[in-house]
């Protein structure tokens, strides 16, 4: 499976999640998206949004790895 990358460090909430969500919609189930977020609230909010949407999420610092459900 291909690994996809997305940088949302210049995006504020809710756009950081909107852009991530739209990118995930374009992936096939099981594909992985690695998102780089700015330090701050996105580190907490973005993984929470992704989990609520049913995706599998792991967080390492400001790198958030999301496996599309």
């Amino acid at each position: 499976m291909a690994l996809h990358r997305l940088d949302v460090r210049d995006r504020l909430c809710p756009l950081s999640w909107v852009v991530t969500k739209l990118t995930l919609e374009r992936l096939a189930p099981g594909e992985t998206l690695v998102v780089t977020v700015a330090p701050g609230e996105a580190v907490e909010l973005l993984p929470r949004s992704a989990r609520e949407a049913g995706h599998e999420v792991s967080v390492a610092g400001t790198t958030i790895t999301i496996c599309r459900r």
Partner: protein
Amino acid sequence: MSGSSRLTEEEVERYARQLVLPQWSEAAQLALGAARVLVVGLGALGSPVALYLAAAGVGRIGLLDDDRVERSNLARQLLHGPADVGRPKVESAVASLRALHPHVVLEPHELRIAEENAVALVAGHDLVLDCSDSFATRYLLNDACCQTGVPLVEAGVLGFDGLVLSIQPGSSACYRCAFPLAPPPAVARSCAEGGVLGALAGVIGSLQALEAIKLLTGVGRPATDALLQVDGLDLTVTRVHLQRRADCPACGPAHPRSSTL
């Protein structure tokens, strides 16, 4: 935004608060952008309807009304301002909607819907919103939508009461299924004679816009086979279940739709 398979950067920002909804998606937003709707009547209901549909990103909006703006419209018809008094409503509506959303395609029709033109006006749209204030227009639009298969969101306000009814011709109850006969003349006052509070029309028109957005995107469940009655004085909402009538002259099997197109 027509026919494109991706939203532009500007659209992603503009629609961020609806794109973030779990039930929403890029596909839903693109479906709105590709949609062509017809708003019949640009008064108390047509104002919130057209404003919310344009704001939400509906791509093409037909605007039909043959009236001019009067001062007595201003308390409830938010598309029109004091400087528009005397101007055709379609013109003032185009100006307001253009200011709100520069990219929406607006198709003004300065005319009255009648038996001769109803089917031709309705055809080619993905959805029609009846924001008129006459029973004659309701039946005309209902019949034209049943004949062409175009979904219709029907609504009305009078006094502190309002109603909303979504119609998917051929699969859900139509306006004639719900009201086979026009009310007697004593009850069939038009909004022009009866009083209407703008805020109530705002509620009903917003519900109508919400139903249209759901029907166009497939998000949620539209209120088909149901009549939503809102009592603005007590703020109570009643949902009445409707059923198609086998003998309905508009949508019944005796009158298969699109046979006369």
